[in-house]
């Protein structure tokens, strides 16, 4: 008896959620679903939206005059919008707040020039001198040192398992991996690096992304991720080593070496593959950054989706 009442309740609840979400989806200004929608209720929602999209599809296929048909359909949005929305419920990039665009564009151009005329020649020369295996080892070394950044952010984001993984990785790689130059934790023990940063932590604790900012040399960011950079720097042992033991020039060299080494492995492919085929490289990079950050933030659990849309 009790279980059937419970079942009824769940059923009614599901239908309510379905209705609410379908209504929300069909109005254009509501990409952000209510955050309190529980995960397991989402599948039927999408199903239903699909059904509607399909129904309309077949209807309008019979009637070639699309626009007329859409005008007479009182409910929901047009067929095209419905199709556009199909997967965009999740992947639609939020409108980026960019009041500093003139300044940002100038810095973007500067960074682009710096990349092509300064950083690229450096890493090209570096690549010809240092074999790839050595460069990967150097990256492993820096990655291992920066373990506290990932460890603490795992903790801040409530990912205890991730923090444990990072701890294990650190122990294995510092010993068996010869002070972190190798990554046996991944190759032998299949422990994946947990890419957690302070920007994600702030997003998890309901901070808005704020306006878009492009920093010289560092590149695209926003208010939240800038604060994230500062937080990560505070958690980074390299910062403390630099502060106590190195002169400013040495620590700058240290930082640049880490960066150039990173780029040298990637060969700048990420940057160039976004900006080169773009019609407007500035917007292309801004959008790629925003979409990529959204993905990384969503990976952390119970992230409030409405945050990036409502600001």
């Amino acid at each position, binding site marked *: 008896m009790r279980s059937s009442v419970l079942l009824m309740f769940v059923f009614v609840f599901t239908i309510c959620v379905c209705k609410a979400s379908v209504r929300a989806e069909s109005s254009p200004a509501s990409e952000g679903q209510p955050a309190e929608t529980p995960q397991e209720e989402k599948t039927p929602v999408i199903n239903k939206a*699909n059904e509607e999209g*399909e129904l309309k599809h077949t209807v309008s296929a019979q009637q070639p005059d699309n626009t007329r048909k859409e005008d007479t359909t009182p409910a929901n949005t047009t067929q*095209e919008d419905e199709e556009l929305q199909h997967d965009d419920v999740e992947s639609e990039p939020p409108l980026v707040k960019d009041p500093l665009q003139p300044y940002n564009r100038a810095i973007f151009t500067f960074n682009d020039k710096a990349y092509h005329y300064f950083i690229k020649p450096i890493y090209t020369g570096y690549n010809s001198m240092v074999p790839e295996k050595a460069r990967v080892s150097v990256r492993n070394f820096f990655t291992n040192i920066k373990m506290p950044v990932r460890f603490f952010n795992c903790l801040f984001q409530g990912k205890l398992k991730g923090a444990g993984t990072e701890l294990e990785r650190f122990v294995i790689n510092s010993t068996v991996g010869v002070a972190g130059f190798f990554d046996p934790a991944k190759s032998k023990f299949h422990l994946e690096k947990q890419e957690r940063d302070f920007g994600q932590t702030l997003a998890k604790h309901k901070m808005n992304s704020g306006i878009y900012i492009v920093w010289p040399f560092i590149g695209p960011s926003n208010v939240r991720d800038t604060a994230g950079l500062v937080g990560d720097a505070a958690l980074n042992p390299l910062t403390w080593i630099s502060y106590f033991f190195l002169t400013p020039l040495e620590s700058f060299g240290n930082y640049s070496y880490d960066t150039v080494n990173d780029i040298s*492995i990637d060969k700048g492919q990420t940057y160039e593959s976004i900006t080169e085929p773009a019609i407007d490289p500035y*917007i292309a990079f801004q959008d790629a950054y925003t*979409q990529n950050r959204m993905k990384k933030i969503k990976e952390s659990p119970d992230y409030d989706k409405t945050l990036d849309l409502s600001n």
Partner: protein
Amino acid sequence: MNYRKITSALGIGILSLAVISPLLWAGEPGKLLMETIDKGFAILKDPSLKGEEKTLERRQMLWKEISPIFNFDEMSKRALGQHWKSRTPEEKKEFVELFTNIMKDAYIGKTDTYSGEKVVIVSEKQDKNYATVQTKIITNKGTEVSVDYNMLNNPGKWIIYDVIIEGVSLVNNYRSQFNNILIKSSYKELIQKIKAKQS
């Protein structure tokens, strides 16, 4: 009484599983995608097509094998978003052509640096006429890049309408660019910009 209930529930469960599972595990979009990718890799690995002097020939062959799985009409439509509807049929045709060229120039060229990357399917979700195939590119350095393919069933044939690399949707990326240009200037200027880029 209770026994009968349980057995009937079990029966229904097994029956529905038997009906649903072929639909779930058919894996048609994923299979098609992997076949196409394998065909592409076969060309990239072909020793008779290696080397710089063969670049053009190799790119053409790749394009011939890979392009049928993409639906450039759908991609163009989505990339233009809300502005698609107000275009005349001729404009639409021209735009699809231009957008196809953007894709071709941008991404066939990337294959020149192929050095033994592998592609594996991570998961596959199918939802009636829409499907998402999540894949991972594994480079020989062990780096992993997540690439998702959004596909739709175009009566009888699964085709790709969006590619999402590390969370960055290609179509959305171009939509942001086009939207930003169209806010400030006319459609004509957008076309001019694309043409200037391609010449």
